[in-house]
């Protein structure tokens, strides 16, 4: 328990299930996700439709596992690009200090001072709907926290004796920064990435739910929840499957994040 | 004090075994003993879940009114021993054997409530870094005052007077100003004095001092050592003093225990240990310190390194670094041997006296 083994195990099993389903959906889905069948509208969960069907007679389970792909794509590309941008900004800001640090941090503060959803709204309004817009919007809202974490770690290592001794050895600043300081920030960065993934999934779901995300008929978890909302009293199972997928993924990722934190940061 | 160390001739028990209970011939039980450790063994949990002995089979008596030093290098278990006495062991350190007897009770078996009644009142501790034990956001006067009012119900004015007295007693010249200061505004020496004042509010029977002067400059260190000696003399407070510095030990201690890798190597009066060390480790330690007449020559230092706690050690943990190690050192742990005058050594090089032999023979 001490090394976070338990958390890792739970986390990997839960996210593993979701990932397996996502991969499965590429090759096989129980039903065509866009097949609308008037005869089978709002069927409650049964053996042929594991999680029932929606208002148009589409199989909820099939749509949910296909939706995983989109949600994952958005989350991964958001966190990925965010990590790259934040690494550059954070390392620069932390190591250079002074005016550079001041400028970068004030920019970050500026972004932080707007509510995230407002920023997303503005970006979507300007750029029109689409997955790249979502990714961009999420990225802008995520960069500040990532940058701060890398900057803090950089400052911490900048003051370590080994960095001082590398300077005395004559090693260039760039090399100290990239070869010696950056890898030391990875443990912290890794747990931030994992938690960031779960936040991105939630944020994507929220945006899709508000109608800012992906447009129909492509399924995504948030989108499906939105579609389930009007009929939630007649057919609550329509919301169940995507909701469950979100919960499982978030719990899984958070477990991994906690495991990482316990292993490397304590 | 020294006279009381001379062992009597009441030895009737069987010859020394591997274990040295407090009632062994070399550690004569007398009325003067305030605290005794008997076969104390502590295990530390390693990262992989296994446990390694960090303190093994440590037995000693602390006599009323003495300053007893425990000296050793990092990882020798000296601090853990003190923490075990105070009941402040971290959760990954577990007492796995032995007893610590104080006031007729085993300190290792106390409940939380009983422990609270003893700590601070009968036993008190000061640490190497006083900053960690002081609240950085509270003025010295208030912190000390709170400590005073914890133990006695007195008026505000009385508390203030007591606090001032306490600070003056530990040699702080401008006590008024000190009371108004925050911990970070004081120098290291002043902070340590404040800690000593706080630790001695209740005039504890035993004051445990865990490297209290290591972080201080040599001149300040000398003053703090003098202060501790004064407290010992004036209030009769027994002091258990932990240090890695033989010089500091020489300045303050009546008796010394030398520890290495969790075990006692030798113990005796300060004079005996420093002038006539018997254990090869103590000898090596003393030889390796640069002094006035060693300039220009190589220091005859002990080869090798202090074994980490988790490493499996020989029965005599010093055997791998010892120049005079014998086969037996790697197969059986040395029992205690007396050298007279209360000087004992755990080493196979010295003869174990037979059953029923008088102490005089050993001395």
């Amino acid at each position, binding site marked *: 328990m001490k090394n976070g083994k338990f958390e890792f195990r739970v986390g990997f099993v839960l996210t593993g299930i979701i990932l397996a389903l996502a991969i499965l959906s590429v090759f096989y889905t129980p039903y065509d996700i866009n097949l609308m069948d008037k005869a089978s509208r709002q069927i409650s969960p049964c053996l042929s439709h594991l999680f029932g069907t929606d208002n148009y007679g589409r199989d909820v389970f099939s749509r949910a596992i296909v939706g995983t792909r989109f949600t994952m794509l958005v989350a991964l590309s958001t966190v990925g690009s965010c990590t790259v941008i934040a690494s550059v900004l954070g390392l620069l800001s932390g190591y250079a200090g002074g005016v550079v640090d001041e400028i970068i941090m004030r920019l970050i503060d500026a972004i932080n001072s707007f509510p995230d959803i407002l920023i997303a709204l503005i970006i979507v309004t300007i750029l029109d709907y689409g997955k790249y817009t979502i990714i961009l919007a999420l990225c802008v809202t995520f960069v500040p926290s990532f940058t701060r974490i890398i900057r803090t770690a950089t400052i911490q290592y900048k003051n370590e004796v080994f960095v001082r001794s590398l300077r005395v*050895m004559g*090693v260039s600043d760039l090399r100290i920064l990239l070869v010696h300081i950056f890898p*030391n920030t990875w443990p912290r960065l890794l747990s931030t990435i994992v938690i960031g993934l779960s936040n991105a999934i939630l944020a994507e779901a929220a945006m899709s739910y508000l109608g800012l995300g992906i447009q129909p008929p492509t399924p995504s978890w948030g989108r499906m929840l939105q579609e389930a909302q009007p009929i939630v009293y007649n057919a609550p199972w329509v919301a169940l499957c995507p909701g469950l997928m979100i919960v499982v993924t978030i719990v899984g990722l958070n477990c991994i994040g906690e495991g990482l934190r316990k292993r490397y940061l304590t | 004090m020294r006279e009381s160390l001379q062992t009597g001739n009441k030895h009737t028990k069987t010859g020394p075994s591997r274990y040295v209970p407090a009632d062994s011939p070399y550690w004569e039980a007398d009325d003067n003993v305030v605290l005794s450790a008997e076969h104390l063994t502590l295990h530390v949990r390693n990262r992989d879940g296994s446990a390694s002995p960090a303190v093994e089979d440590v037995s000693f008596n602390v006599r009323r009114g003495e300053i007893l030093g425990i000296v050793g290098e*990092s990882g020798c278990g000296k601090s853990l021993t003190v923490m075990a006495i105070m009941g402040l062991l971290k959760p990954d350190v577990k007492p796995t054997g032995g007893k610590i007897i104080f006031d007729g009770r085993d300190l290792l078996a106390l409940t939380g409530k009983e422990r609270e009644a003893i700590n601070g009142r009968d036993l008190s501790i000061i640490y190497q870094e006083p900053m960690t034990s002081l609240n950085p956001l509270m003025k010295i006067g208030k912190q000390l005052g709170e400590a005073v009012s914890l133990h006695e119900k007195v008026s505000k004015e009385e508390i203030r007077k007591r606090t001032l007295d306490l600070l003056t007693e530990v040699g702080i010249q401008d006590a008024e100003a000190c009371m108004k200061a925050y911990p970070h505004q004081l120098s290291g020496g002043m902070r340590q004095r404040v800690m000593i004042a706080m630790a001695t509010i209740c005039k504890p029977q035993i004051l445990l001092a865990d490297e209290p002067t290591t972080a201080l400059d*040599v*001149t300040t260190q000398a003053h703090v050592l003098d202060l501790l000696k004064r407290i010992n003399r004036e209030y009769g407070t027994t002091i258990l003093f932990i240090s890695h510095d033989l010089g500091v030990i020489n300045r*303050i201690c009546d008796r010394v225990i030398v520890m290495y890798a969790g075990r006692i190597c030798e113990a005796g009066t300060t004079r005996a240990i420093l002038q006539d060390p018997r254990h090869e480790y103590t000898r090596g*330690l003393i030889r390796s310190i*640069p002094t006035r007449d060693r300039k220009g020559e190589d*220091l005859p230092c002990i080869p090798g390194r202090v074994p980490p706690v988790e490493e499996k050690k020989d029965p005599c943990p010093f055997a791998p670094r010892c120049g005079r190690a014998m086969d037996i050192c790697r197969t059986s742990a040395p029992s205690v041997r007396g050298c007279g005058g209360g000087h004992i050594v755990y080493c196979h090089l010295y003869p174990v006296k037979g059953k029923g032999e008088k102490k005089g023979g050993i001395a």
Partner: protein
Amino acid sequence: MNGKESGDILRVEHVSNYYSQGGLGILRKQEKNQVLQDVSLTIGRDEFFGLVGESGCGKSTLGNAILGLIPYEGTITVAGLDRAKVSRKEFTRHIQAVFQDPLSALNPRKTIGFTMKEPLRAHDIGTEEERDQMVARMLERVGLDASYAARYPRELSGGQRQRVCIGAALILQPELIIADEATSALDVSVGAQILNLFRTIDVERDFSMLFISHNLNVVYYLCDRIAVMYKGSIVEMGTADAVYNDPLHPYTRLLLTAIPDFESENYKDRQLLERFRPPSPGSCAFYHRCPHATDKCKKVPDLRNKAMKGEEEHLVRCFYL
């Protein structure tokens, strides 16, 4: 000042250093505290020079200034190069350092070999293979063996790590090494091994060393000359024997009586030669603790040579000598 022969490897001339402290952000009031006050010293080739003083006296600050890690006023030249005028790369060929805490002096995520090769890479010395060989040879010289190159710092004990640090400092064959409390964090028996290592390596190859320590015994043991620092200025400087066995400044004497001594028995009751009085601004730095101070000491004394004829220079900053 010492005779300025061209053979001096380090020359520190009138170096002062300030640090500012104060409140938060833009409301910060610039309060300048002087750490180093007009420090001058020279270290000759192949000389071991000891710098002693209490914590906060500025001895480490001087070391960092010489290494170019902090700003200063004055001139510092190493092997004829002015730190302010040459690049870090050029400067570091001549000067290397060993720091106090071997625990944090090595990058925890890099192997010993990688860290030890860093200075060679930085100065484009040798091919990768040659570097490996140089590291292996250096590891042996500092009392380890080539297999250590593949290990990580966490697998080594404090003494072994300090050996690695010394090896990394020596690998460029610098002319000057700054050792800042290099043995202070180590256990007594391990510290002795490191002191011996410094001595044997010095025999094998010539270099000068500025050995900074709070421990006068260690400095005396290792060094040829000693300077004693108090509150940012040098109060006494001379050969190790002169300073240690015939101390002149009251502060040096105080230090010597305060050193914990395990050999003499009367040490237990030794009294410190110290008298406290309220500090007076602009006075001799030691005024408030000096047992001999008079009104004359309310000015700052100069560093003056007190050596007898035929003896080596022995500088003291005191009016009454």
